[in-house]
């Protein structure tokens, strides 16, 4: 296990390095000049030169990338801001705020949204999928399958606004979506995020229902499960000791990727519910051609995916002893 983890972490660092370099290059491949966007109404060439110097973009691109990379590991000095301690992700082109600080400020909301909705869609998705698999062919299976098909066809921007109108404006059942830190007010935290959790998890619940059902139906027809049944084990025993573990592998894999994607930012959900998470930050940094912020969010999202992939691989071995890590 330790050797596995070290190998994977080193691999992850290489991947993040490549992603950051590609993002850097892609940004400059598009003909946008952050200095011009920052420059005031009566812009002059001298002012543009000054802005480029202030932003640190008056060097060749490889030098700019090297400086950024150096800042991540050992910190760096900025013309207008002094020394930025490691890990330094730079300052926003748009509002001159520290990138790392801004991302960390938005992260709790994104984590709350991701983990909260994950709990909902895992519980309901896997639970419904299990029921559908056990009751295969019966009305429970048909209802669950049809409902999940309809739900997975929906879009958050449609369901979200509809839910806001019905549940908040008209029926006043739920609060307007908002974020209160969990440590400040747990009840406020939950009530403010309840609607986004329900909407976000609606589509994912449908997907996990279908996936769980499909995996369990396949596993339940495996020879070893039939053997266990033939040996007289109870249905519950057969299901949870044998079938369940065999079916969970792919689901765990997908869940790792899905959770990492959510942590990278549920852009549409955050936009629909006016939540200021990492997703909205990514969107605005693209809109404003804010390279440091864009880089920071990209590296965070990629890092989340890589990290959860490592976790998933480790968990996989726990679920399925046939998998060897070394």
């Amino acid at each position, binding site marked *: 296990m330790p050797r596995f983890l070290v190998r994977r972490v080193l691999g992850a660092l290489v991947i993040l390095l490549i992603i950051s370099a590609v993002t850097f290059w892609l940004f400059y491949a598009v003909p946008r000049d952050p200095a011009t966007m920052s420059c005031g109404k009566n812009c002059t060439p001298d002012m543009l030169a*000054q802005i480029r110097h202030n932003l640190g973009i008056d060097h060749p691109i490889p030098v700019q990338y090297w400086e950024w990379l150096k800042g991540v590991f050992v910190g760096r000095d900025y013309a207008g801001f002094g020394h930025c301690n490691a890990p330094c992700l730079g300052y926003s082109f*748009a509002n001159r*705020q520290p990138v790392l600080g801004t991302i960390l400020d*938005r992260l709790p909301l994104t984590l709350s949204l991701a983990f909260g909705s994950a709990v909902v869609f895992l519980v309901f998705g896997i639970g419904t999928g299990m029921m559908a698999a056990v009751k295969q062919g019966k009305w429970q299976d048909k209802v669950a399958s049809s409902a999940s098909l309809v739900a997975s066809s929906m879009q958050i921007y449609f369901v979200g606004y509809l839910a806001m109108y019905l549940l908040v404006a008209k029926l*006043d059942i739920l609060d*307007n979506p908002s974020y209160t830190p969990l440590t400040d007010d747990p009840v406020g935290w939950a009530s403010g995020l309840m609607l986004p959790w329900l909407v976000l998890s609606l589509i994912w619940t449908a997907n996990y229902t279908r996936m769980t059902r499909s995996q369990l139906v396949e596993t339940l027809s495996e020879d070893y499960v039939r053997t266990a049944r033939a040996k007289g084990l109870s249905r519950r025993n057969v299901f949870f000791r044998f079938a369940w573990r065999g079916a969970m592998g792919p689901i765990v894999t997908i869940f790792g990727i899905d959770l990492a994607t959510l942590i990278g930012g549920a852009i549409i959900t955050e936009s*629909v519910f006016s939540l200021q998470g990492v997703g909205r930050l990514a969107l605005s940094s693209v809109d404003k051609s804010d390279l440091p912020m864009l880089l920071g969010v990209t590296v965070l999202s990629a890092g989340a995916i890589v990290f959860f992939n490592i976790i998933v691989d480790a968990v996989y071995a726990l679920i399925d002893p046939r998998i060897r890590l070394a």
Partner: protein
Amino acid sequence: MSFSRRNFLIATGVAAAGTTVLSACGGSGGGSSSNDKVPSVSGAKTMNIPVGTKADSTGPAPEVPGAVKGGTIYSLDQFDMDHLDPAQIYVSTEGAITRPILRGLTGYKIDDKGGCTLIGDVATDAGTMKDGGKTWSFTIKDGIKWEDGADLSMDDVRHTFERLFASFVTEGPRYVQQWLVGGDKYKGPYSGKSLDSIEIDGKTITFHLTEARADFNYTLGMPGYGLVPKKHDTKEQYDKRPFALGPYKIGDRKIGKSLTYVRNEHWDPKTDAMRNAYPDKYLFQFGYETVASTDRYIADKGNDQYTMSIFNEVAPERTQQVLTNATLKKRVLTQVDTVTYYWPINMTRIKDVKVRQAINWAWPHQQLQTIRGGKATSELASTILSPVTPGYEHFDLYGVETKPGGDPAKAKALLKEAGKVGQKLVIAYQQSDNAVKQAVAIKNALEAAGFKVVNKQVDKTTFYTQIGKIDNGYDLFAAGWSPDWPNGYSVFFPCWSGKNIGDGRSNYAQLNDPTVNKAIDQASTIADTKAANKAWGAIDKQIMELAAVVPDYHSIRNWMYGSKVGNVVYDAGNTCVALCKLYVKK
């Protein structure tokens, strides 16, 4: 100014006269269509913003009838403010949000009839002009204190203007830097050097300018010239946490999420003729799309009853619903804008005036208005100046009012005279749903008139960079401008003077007509407001006769608010809701 969000400064527009500023109060009965009660820009009366007297500049500000102290005003807006350092403020929303905390030498006093007067803010009056406008002096009032109780000193006032030359100040207005004698070489106060053209004598500050500026006191009314304390000047960091002189100070700030103002206990209302301070607190909240904020205003529940918006207007998707509902319309502040959206014609490529006139005749104004959402959101333009800007003169050289759908026959006849039937036009437009639809309508109309049109879609984040290049390769492109203060100088000089042709400059049409240049230079020196306005109106007509541009439309703005927000009126100085006039209804 160009129209990206960052440049959405409509800093010193002129409010229409009281009878034509339509607020939500006293709305029509039910069943009327939105078109019946839409304020007409062309029907709005242009009001000159006069210079007030010393008495006008003396506080306190007149009480708002029925207003009570207390409560919290909330806001729902899409974007946070990128800058709070006054030296970096050029966007109207940043100017508006800082009015309760920042003060300058001069400012605009709103009266209860919707009118506006230029007065002294921290100055005892709106300034004394000498040498035909090359020297300006302002005397500072007594008793003005910062949020920490320290007196506003003359060092602070000097420092405010000297720091404008610092290298980190790149986004605010540049007028003072360009006009102060020695400003071309001065690098700011941080190396210990002062600027000699700023003189202090007792409580009087005097500015020596390189050119006569009869309207310099108006220029200083811009939010970009808010005062900064020398002792608490944190340079680049000041952008995050400016020091307050106004009735409020910053209580809390969560970048991108919220900004809270609490009372500044050291503010003396007797020194302030502009601001009231009724609410105990303001809580500005960011990140709300216009549809989301409009829906919340419609629902009007909980704290949303005490909420307004600085930036967010009624969402286009809800305009019909809101403006045709008498109850909802009562909670909408509708105001005509000072901005004119237009399409400059590249004079270096389209050199024949008859061709440019043909473009004007063929233009499908009415179709474009429909695409934008109809008469509720915009009014057709036939001039460069908005009808609510001083200097505006009504004229319609190309049939905008008589043939709003365009006159292709007339256009074709002009092309024939010029021998240019089939003239190719390359038109640049931004990537957006509306822009694409408008491009199609324009192409159809111009081709019906005998042009051959090539549409070029340009990425919106680089649009103004590209059309701002001398060799941009385009014949027409969408742009727009609004005055930085209420006269024609800040419209015509940056956009139509031959001195402003160059990469990144705003004379997109690259108009360089000697008679126009001379007229602009002369109008800039006229001290008498009425005479100056007459001159600007004449320049407008002169440029339109040259057909250097196709005026498109003036915006109509609709701000919705909660039912318990009182006295929602328009701040002509910042072209937004007047924050310092609001109160919380009990």
